[in-house]
Each structure stands twice: as C-alpha cells, then as structure tokens.
C-alpha cells in the first residue's frame, strides 16, 4: 500500500513543525512502481529513508534514518531504545547475586562477559578480588573465550548474510551451535547462564566437560580455515568490505570505539593484555590488529581472534585438568552460595547432601543458607568499575553500593552502545548498501545497546 499523506492528517500527535516538506510514502513492499512514479513528480533526489526498526539487516531493532541524495548517504542517524527493558533499574530491586541473572540478558551474544564485568565490580566492592579460587578464574576465562568465539561467529555469520554470503551464515551458526552445546553442558543453559557470580562460579565442571571442550577445539581447528577459504581472498567479499566503514584511530578515540573497531586501526588495545585481569597475563595469546581501519580489517580481526581464543581455551582446559576437585567459589560462607545444585529426577535443582548438612548437622550452615537465600549478602558502601574485554570492546560495569543487600546502582558501559555512535561517520558519504556493511562491522547487539 502506498499512500501520499499530507502533513495535517499524518500524525495527530506530532507537532506541525515536525514536518518540513515533501510527501510521505509508506512502503510495505511490492509497490515500488507507485513510489517511483510518486517521487518522480517531485524534482528532487533527496529522500529520507527510515530503515528499521524491524529490518533483518539491523541486528535486532535498530532504526536507521538515512538521508539520501540519489544513492549517496548524506546523513545517517540511529534511533535506539526499542529494546529497552529497564534491566539496570530492575537490578536495583534484586539482591547482588540475582543481579547476575539480569545483566546476563543484556547482550545475548556475550552473556558471560556481562556476568564477568558485574562480578568484577561487585568483587572489588566486597574486597574479595584476591580470594577468588584459581579454578573459578580459569573457568571464567574458559567460558569467556568460548563465548568470544560464539559471538564472533555470529558477527561473521550475520555480516556475511547481509551482503549475500549465505553459506557464511549457515556455517557460522553451525559452529556457534557447538559452542552453545558446551555452554549447556557446563552451565545447563544455552544463554542467560547466570553462571559467573560474585565470589566465583555457580557450579563445578560436570564430568566429561573437558573432553567435549577438547573435541570442540580439535573440530574448530579444522573448520576455521573454511571461513578463511570462503572469505579472505573472495573478490566479492573484499569488494564489499574493503574501504567501507572507515574509521581511523583519532576517530575511534574521540567516539569511544573499542574492540575490533579500534584494533582495526592498528592500535593493540586489548584489556586482556593492557589491564590484565583474572590471570590473563599468564596465558599465551596475541592481540590481533589490522591496519586498514575498515570493515574488512574488522572481519579479519574477528577471524584471527577466534584462533587466539582457541589457544586460550586449550591452555585453560589444561589447567582445569590439574584443578580437579578444587573449590570454585570463595571460601567465605557469608558470600558463597552454599549448595552445589544437581538436577534431580523430578527435574528440580536440588542438593541432597546440602539439605542433610543444614537440616541435620549444622545450625550455622542453616542460618547462612537462610540469610543468603532470603536476604542476600551485604556489600560495603562505595563504588567500583569492573572492566572486561568483551567481543565488542571495552565492557564496564559501574556498581554503586549503599551498604545494602541490593545494588544501589548498576550501570553498564556497553561497547555496542558506544560503537554504534560511529554509524554516522562510517556511513555518511558512502552508498546505501555500505551502511549495512558498516553497521555489520560494528557488530552491535541491540539487547546490550538498549539494556
């Protein structure tokens, strides 16, 4: 349906001044002829196109407002907020441990990194950063690196799909599913894990997990070259991505861009190396950079970072093999969740040993259990900034405590949110089709952007 509406009856709630001039076409498909003929009546090449919020190439619900002069984009603006669910506000009404279950839902492609940033902030507030058991740290690193692989796979897969490389999409999601299987094996869930908690991790590794992880690494080493073979030298791929979405180092710093966007300018800024946390300085891996500052460089960085993540996964699997039976959560009984839950025959999480312990053996254990489950632990007043290197760049959590059992404020510095600001400078002056490539190279996840 195409309709030419005059400003008066277009939107009863809008102010008259919202409309400057020109007809409005509502296009729902199959009606290009009438649009073209309608536009031809007006002797202007200038068109304002509203792309999204529901559009397969916008990575969720991103709205792009493009002002076009023919095929050239003269202005690009982002409209966000369509996926805002008030996660940060909700966290203020739950206790500190429950906060994990909320922030894991922000960026649904990198849930472990959000849990990690939050846990880092809370642990600094609690002053227990040095008390986290080694095994918990190694498990966190392992899960975060697996998560980096799965996130980069989606970035490459959807980015490929958007320029028509459907095979890249199918193989990308095929491999990602294998990573999600590992997550399910370790945490019980494919996403929204709430596994990395203040003090450690929720559970020990299940039996057989390390074997599955090693098999996955072996498989990925065979599969990853496929991506390189498909894309790296593919003339169409290089033609679409090369030189598109250019953003140099000065632009990155001014606009706050981090992650692959920053590293594509050749600047090796990776928090895992520059501000190491959780033992990252003891792992052997390289910070990947590229020197083209364009979409192609960002793609190559993601591809190579998966190799580096595999190296870290291998090393952490080796370490975990030596840490069998070691504790995975801080020893302080006033912080550590008491039970090791297992799924019983009724499908409910339970721990018979723990119930026996609190009901029959130790009154203190019962009190701790009761206090932790109903009230939660208290966190000394103050503020902290927990940072991790997420697949999309610097992810940080600003947590404020007023000394209570709930976060007084938890704010996430989301790399997608910040990097998405670069859309304008990356796509203005280019062609319409390049907007898609530029946005895909930022790899925004709207769940994280809007929170």
């Amino acid at each position, binding site marked *: 349906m195409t309709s030419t509406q005059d400003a008066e009856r277009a939107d009863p709630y809008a102010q008259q001044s919202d409309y400057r001039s020109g007809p409005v076409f509502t296009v729902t498909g199959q009606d290009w002829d009438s649009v073209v003929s309608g536009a031809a009546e007006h002797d202007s090449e200038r068109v304002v196109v509203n792309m999204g919020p529901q559009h397969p190439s916008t990575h969720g619900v991103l709205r792009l407002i493009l002002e076009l002069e023919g095929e050239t984009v003269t202005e690009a603006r982002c409209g966000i907020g369509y996926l805002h669910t008030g996660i940060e506000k909700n966290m203020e*009404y739950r206790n500190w441990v429950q906060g994990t279950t909320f922030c894991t839902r922000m960026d649904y492609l990198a849930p472990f990194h959000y849990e990690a940033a939050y846990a880092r902030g809370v642990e600094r507030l609690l002053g227990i950063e040095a008390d986290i058991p080694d095994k918990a740290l190694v498990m966190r690193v392992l899960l975060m690196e697996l998560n980096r692989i799965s996130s980069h796979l989606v970035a490459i897969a959807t980015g490929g799909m958007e320029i028509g490389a459907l095979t890249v999409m199918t193989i990308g999601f095929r491999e990602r599913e294998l990573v999600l299987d590992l997550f399910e094996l370790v945490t019980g869930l494919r996403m929204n894990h709430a596994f990395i908690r203040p003090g450690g991790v929720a559970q020990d590794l299940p039996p057989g997990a390390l074997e599955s992880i090693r098999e996955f690494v072996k498989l990925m080493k065979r599969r990853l070259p496929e991506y390189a073979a498909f894309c790296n030298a593919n003339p169409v791929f290089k033609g679409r991505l090369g030189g598109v979405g250019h953003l140099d180092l000065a632009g990155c*710093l001014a606009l706050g861009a981090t992650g692959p966007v920053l590293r594509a300018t050749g600047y090796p*800024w990776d928090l895992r190396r520059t501000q190491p946390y959780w033992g990252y300085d003891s792992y052997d891996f390289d910070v990947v950079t590229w020197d083209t500052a364009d979409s192609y460089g960002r793609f190559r960085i993601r591809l190579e970072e998966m190799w580096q993540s595999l190296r870290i996964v291998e090393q952490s699997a080796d370490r975990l093999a030596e840490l069998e039976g070691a504790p995975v959560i801080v020893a302080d009984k006033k912080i550590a969740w008491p039970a090791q839950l297992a799924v019983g025959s009724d499908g409910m999480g339970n721990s018979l040993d723990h119930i026996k312990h609190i009901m029959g053996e130790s009154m203190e254990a019962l009190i701790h259990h009761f206090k932790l489950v109903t009230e939660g632990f208290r966190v000394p*007043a103050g*503020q902290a900034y927990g940072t991790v290197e997420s697949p999309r760049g610097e992810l*940080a959590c600003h947590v404020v405590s007023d*000394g209570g059992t709930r976060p007084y404020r938890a704010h996430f*510095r989301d790399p997608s949110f*910040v990097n*998405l600001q670069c859309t304008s400078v990356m796509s203005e002056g280019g062609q319409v089709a390049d907007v898609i490539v530029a946005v895909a190279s930022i790899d925004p996840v709207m769940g994280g952007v809007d929170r």
Partner: protein
Amino acid sequence: MTAPADDSSERGHSEAERRLHERTRSDDAGTSPDEPETGTTPRGPERDLGVREQMPENTVAPVDPGGGAATFEVVGVREGMFGVDGTGDTSGYGGLRRPVVMPGATQRPFGGWFDEVADQLASGLRQTGTGDVVERVVVDRGEMTVHVRRGHLLATVRQLRDDAALRFEFCSGVSGVHYPGDRGRELHAVYHLLSMTHNRRLRLEVSVPDADPHIPSVVSVYPTADWHERETYDFFGIIFDGHPALTRIMMPDDWPGHPQRKDYPLGGIPVEYKGATIPPPDTRRAYS
C-alpha cells in the same frame, strides 16, 4: 557553552557550594546544624560508635576505606533491619536507624600515581587561571574519584585530555546516580576516563541539586559522551548544557519522568505461579 547555560550553571554552582559548606560539619564529629526536615537525614554523626554497637550481627559496619581516608560521606539513612516499614518487620529491629555512608575525602598521600595526577591537574588548572575546581579526592578500593565542581567541569576535562602528563584521551562513559538523601547534591554524574597512554583510569564525579540539575556538557571535548549524556538525561533528568541535541534516547520522546531516579517506581503486576501470587518486585518485602 552558550551564555544562558553558563549563567544557570554558575548560579547552581554557588548554591551547591553553599550547601557543601554546610555539609562540611559532617567531617568534625558531633555538631549537626543541618536539622533534618522530614527525618530522612541522618541524625548522629556517622562515626558515632553507638551506631556501630547497636548493629545487629551479619550487617557490615560502615566501611573504613583504607589509604588514609578519614572521613565518610553521608548520603542517606537506612531504617529497620529489613527495610520494611510499618508492621511488616516483626524482628524488633524496626526502629533501627543507621546512616548510609560512602567513603569520604582521602588525605594525602593518595599513593601510587594518584598524587601525580592530582598535582598535575591542580597545577595545570592554576596555569589556565581556572579557580578551585576539585571538591575532594576519594581513593577507595584502588580507584581514584575526583569530585569536581560543575562550573569548571569543561576546563577540567580539557586539561585532563590535553595535558601530556595526564592524557586521559578516552572517555569511557557517563553514568548517573541518584541519592535522594544527599540534600542539595541529589544527582551525581559520574565520568569514567581512561588514559591509554599512561594506562590509568580516573573517575570524575559531579553533584548537582535536584532543583537545578544543570551540568555543562563535555561533548565538545569527548564526542563519545553524546549518547551517554542523552542516556543520563533520559534516566535521571540531568540537563547537560551545551549538548548538541539533548533528547531522550531509550525512552519514547513523550515519556513522563526519569525512570532511574529512586522515586520512580519500578512498576509491575502480580504474577501467579503454581497457585501462589507473587507481588511485583518493588512491593515485595525487601531486605535492604
């Protein structure tokens, strides 16, 4: 910055300063000229040992931030043991009142590179003829927070970015915090700066009263703050003067109120699950 914006922020600045002056009494224990109007301001000095002694077990005493911090910053008061009003609390602790204290100003030496940054910033600002900018410096948990008066925020961040010895070239973000109990300084804007050159992180905090929520925008220095300031405006109602287009970013344009403020309800409906009705989170019994 445009003239009227400058004007309003200056006015608020002096107002904030007056308030601050009144509050300094919390540093010398005992006297409290600031009488509470509605009973939400803490009565006693925060270091009153009596308060600590009454504390029930399993609560954390006001944190004593190391590194020479000798003062506390009172931002509110907590009542009862479980944060329940009226008859809900049957524990007998319902009448308990405790101040909510944040780590206060740190005395020198701050330790590490913190002194260096503080000195460099002070001398740089003296050279440019900017007045007394830094309210206080808090070093807590290995992080440095510089509380800045809003009138000179722009000069401060420019100095922080451009001075080669400081070189905080990267603004990580702007976050807001609402302290309704912190009279005259209810709204805080928190800037996290990163110096990639020196590999340091610094936190700037600017406090403004709810009645005059104006802060100069730092977009001219850190373009990345554009969306962050819009977000903070959207959620807290802090108006960043000089921002190129300060509009809502997450909430719809015609949304009333600023959702992340503490007086803004969470909302929600009761949910029935397995025969039981669970009230919405903000009406459940809270254990804060």
